[in-house]
């Protein structure tokens, strides 16, 4: 039996630490060891995208990483999107445009869309569809989700501009 490893990382701006077996998946570490259950476990083989989080700012599948691999990393999960009790503009857009029904895929959709909008701040509808094909939704047929991401794009651009101003 392999010894437990210590994992120290920053999640949503807060330093966290835990001990786990090397075979523990990052998504299970987040949910079971750090009690952050917003990140969902779907297929466990990288297809459904429900477990997508940001690792050092880039969207990645947390079911395809070991927790020990995230030692020293900065993670963002769905729990980190709200500020001061207010929803993130992308979350607001999902609510306003009926971008979710059961909500199972939503954390993965949100983090995937955030990464997409950072890489492509002015995406076409086709860009959004291609980007969101990384996450499977079985309820909404994607129309509401695409609309939400489209609506959030200018808001996030304005926000980024504001933040970059001295």
């Amino acid at each position: 039996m392999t010894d437990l490893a210590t994992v120290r990382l920053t999640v949503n701006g807060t330093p966290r630490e835990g001990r786990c077996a090397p075979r523990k998946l990052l998504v299970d570490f987040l949910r079971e060891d750090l009690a952050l259950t917003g990140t969902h476990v779907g297929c466990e083989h990288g297809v459904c995208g429900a477990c997508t989080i940001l690792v050092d700012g880039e969207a990645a599948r947390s079911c395809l990483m070991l927790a020990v691999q995230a030692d020293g990393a900065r993670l963002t999960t769905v729990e980190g999107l709200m500020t001061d009790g207010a929803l993130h503009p992308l979350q607001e857009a999902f609510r306003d445009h009926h971008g979710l029904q059961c909500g199972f895929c939503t954390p993965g959709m949100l983090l995937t869309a955030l990464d997409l909008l950072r890489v492509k701040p002015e995406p076409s509808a086709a860009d959004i569809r291609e980007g969101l094909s990384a996450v499977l939704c079985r309820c909404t047929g994607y129309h509401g989700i695409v609309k939400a991401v489209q609506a959030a794009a200018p808001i996030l651009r304005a926000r980024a501009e504001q933040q970059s101003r001295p």
Partner: protein
Amino acid sequence: MKPPRFEYHAPRSVDEAVDLLGRYGGDAKVLAGGQSLMPMLNFRLTRPAALVDVNRIAALAYVREDDGMVAFGAMTRQRTIEFSPEVARRLPLLREATRWVGHLPIRSRGTIGGSIAHADPSAEYPAVLTALEGEVVAQGPRGRRTLRAAELFETYLTTRLAPDELLVEVRLPAMPAGAGHAFEEFARRHGDFAIVGIAAMVVRDGARCRTARLATAGAGPVPLRLRAAEEILERDGLGDAAIAAAAARAAELVQPDSDVHASADYRRHLTGVLTARALTRAVERAR
């Protein structure tokens, strides 16, 4: 499911990684980007005694130009390749193929070395390596050696790398100025593995074709260079009739298998259709 138990090592240097691989004598797996190995572990399709995680070897992530070649450290992420200005300039075929590799969140982790060493017959990078006559550098206990694309791939998911060798670098000749290129692929959903993919490059010389390159993904156990189809273009030029003849020849050259995703006949048909599409686009882009 969850991965089975294994001993976990995260070496900081290539030498250390090669030592570890030698110590386990073929019972260790190299963990690169993990986008194929982790699903196999989660499904318990593989049960290695140890994982040698090479993600902490900083010296394995780079893109540099080197005497007409572009050299990639094996751990260079597909995402880095997608957004690299150097790749866009020197290897636009690789850049275009990268957009077909899974999805952006997969490319954040997936690596060029991992994709090639995994040797999935449907994967895009082995086809590009084959089309561009690239090579890989492997390091083992007896030092480094270079393997050409044509000698690297043995069969499904199998390369000629030894169990104690680590793929450390991928080298692709920079595409000639003015070369036209295209990567065409058909999959049932965007981001899925290709049922068939075609990598194409043509170098024009007026109405003539100086060089044509064609390689497949998904049309057999290993990426296949379609030399006899290339020769048609190099002999007859880049007109519509030559493209149609090359595409028909391409479909004859492949030996696909049937599986749950597609029949052999369908793959053969797709090879012809996609070769014609890829060549048409590549010729439009060639200067």
